[in-house]
């Protein structure tokens, strides 16, 4: 990845494209924690791509590429969310529920099902921790939330999920 980043810094569009495509699923999952609508998710990722390409040379430490781009994405998601606070009920939600009901095989579908009733911040933290496999320290740098606060929120989010599942079992 380091080599690709260096090429991308030298305006190699193909190298930059490869970097983005390597992490596009992560970007999608993270944007999904903040935005419900696929149109908006696509817009947020698009804007992230443009901004990160434009500013890539400012990234001093190539090893921080992923955290850097995720921060840009989270900002873009927040911008879109602020512009469009109210959402019509998305038929995609209904589609997802039907899809989950009929296709509960994939581990990831289960993950999305588990976190669906959490708030946006909890979803983001769990996604960064369990899907992107970041450490608490890295998550703190991305989200600017203190490490102890993140730990507490993760515990509370897991408890919420546990309670939800136990309610379901009853």
């Amino acid at each position, binding site marked *: 990845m380091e080599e690709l980043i260096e090429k991308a810094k030298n305006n190699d569009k193909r190298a930059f*494209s490869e970097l983005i495509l390597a992490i596009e699923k992560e970007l999608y999952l993270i944007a999904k924690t903040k935005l419900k609508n696929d149109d908006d998710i696509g817009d947020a990722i*698009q804007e992230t791509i443009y901004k990160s390409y434009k500013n890539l040379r400012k990234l001093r430490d190539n090893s921080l590429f992923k955290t850097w781009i995720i921060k840009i994405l989270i900002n873009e998601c927040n911008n879109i969310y602020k512009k469009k606070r109210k959402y019509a009920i998305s038929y995609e939600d209904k589609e997802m529920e039907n899809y989950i009901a009929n296709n509960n095989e994939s581990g990831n579908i289960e993950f999305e099902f*588990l976190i669906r009733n959490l708030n946006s911040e909890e979803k983001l933290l769990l996604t960064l921790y369990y899907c992107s496999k970041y450490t608490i320290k890295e998550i703190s740098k991305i989200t600017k939330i203190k490490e102890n606060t993140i730990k507490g929120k993760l515990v509370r989010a897991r408890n919420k999920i546990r309670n939800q599942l136990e309610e379901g079992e009853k």
Partner: protein
Amino acid sequence: MKDIDKLLQRNNIDDVNIPNSVENKIHYALNRLGNKSSKINYLKRIITAFVSTIVALVGSVTVYAAFGGTIEGKPIFEWLGSNFDTEYENYKIEVQDQTAVYGETSIDLLSKMYNDGMVILEFDVKIGEEDMKKFDIWENQTINGIYMTFNGASNNWIATIDNKEYGIKTRSAQSYKKIADNEYIVYHMYFLTDKELKNKTDFNINILYAYINPIVRNDGENEDFQAVETVYFDCRGQMDIPFSKNELAENTYTYVPQCESMKYKQMTKTVETVTITPMQIIIKVSSKIENVSNASIGSTTHEDYIGLMRYDAYDQNGNKIGMKNYQTLNKITYANGKSEEWDIGDIGTYKSFKNATMELMEYFIIEKKDDCSSIKIVAQEEIIENPTGENWKQRFKDIGDLNIELKANEVE
């Protein structure tokens, strides 16, 4: 009590499926890197114009397999039918001595053609041994083809003409013919208008560099897919290809047909010209949509909303004929008289506006059949989800067709 931590850890990011709408936006952005006008805020669904999107998704199933991958007996471009192949053989310009070599891999330009906007290139691509290794074909895989992208445009949505890049979103196509595991005939097509050609009679298509991906099939499966592995091929200075609009001009004629417009809600579609070439029929259609607002574009519940429109083409006997259409103009004129031209498929709805007018231009490229005396273009009964209205589906009712009589030897 469940171990929630273990449950959450079971997820596998590789199983994530990104919706096509999001994937398209990602690829669109990657195709437009560094382009000043590429800072599009919102990619909205295209209104009225069907875009024949060929999205080459790296590492995943592409629509390539469905789009004219030529195998023995099949046409070069399936939607243009076998007449196209016959006429291509008759009218193509054979090229000698235009070869690009990079390492052990070579690309020979065998033939070319310009035909009223359609540029065809026929390449013979021989992959060298070291590059074949880079394809990393597994034991349980067969390589059936290659897909080439030129000049960094991952979907070939950019054409380099006279050393300048032009966005030609969706207006390209490619097919291949396998000669051997390491050799392929590749046909590449661009559809260009004077927006790119600037009314020039003569121009060059520049191939500066290419990325070559293998098209493979896993044993036991029914579909090919484009693999992630890629070979880079630098051919700067070796592949500047001259074209002239005069090449097939005397065998091509254009006329203005007598044809009623197609009307739907605030939209009117009008056939501007019909061009008959030896290879295909090209129908130019303009659309005007009045009383447009950011709400009518962005919201499926708005009474003036017009959803994605797709078409079929039929001959006079009701037989379906091959067709693709490309949009080349996407212009909005606001109530204050100010106009903006947007990239195909995009209208920014981040600002509020109403009483605007949209103008679109489309080209319908239609298979040429000997016994076809008229063409009917019909809007498909498109189903659009309308999540908050009473009816979940919207159909194009009473939209009318475009009925075009084909005439012989009438010059505009």
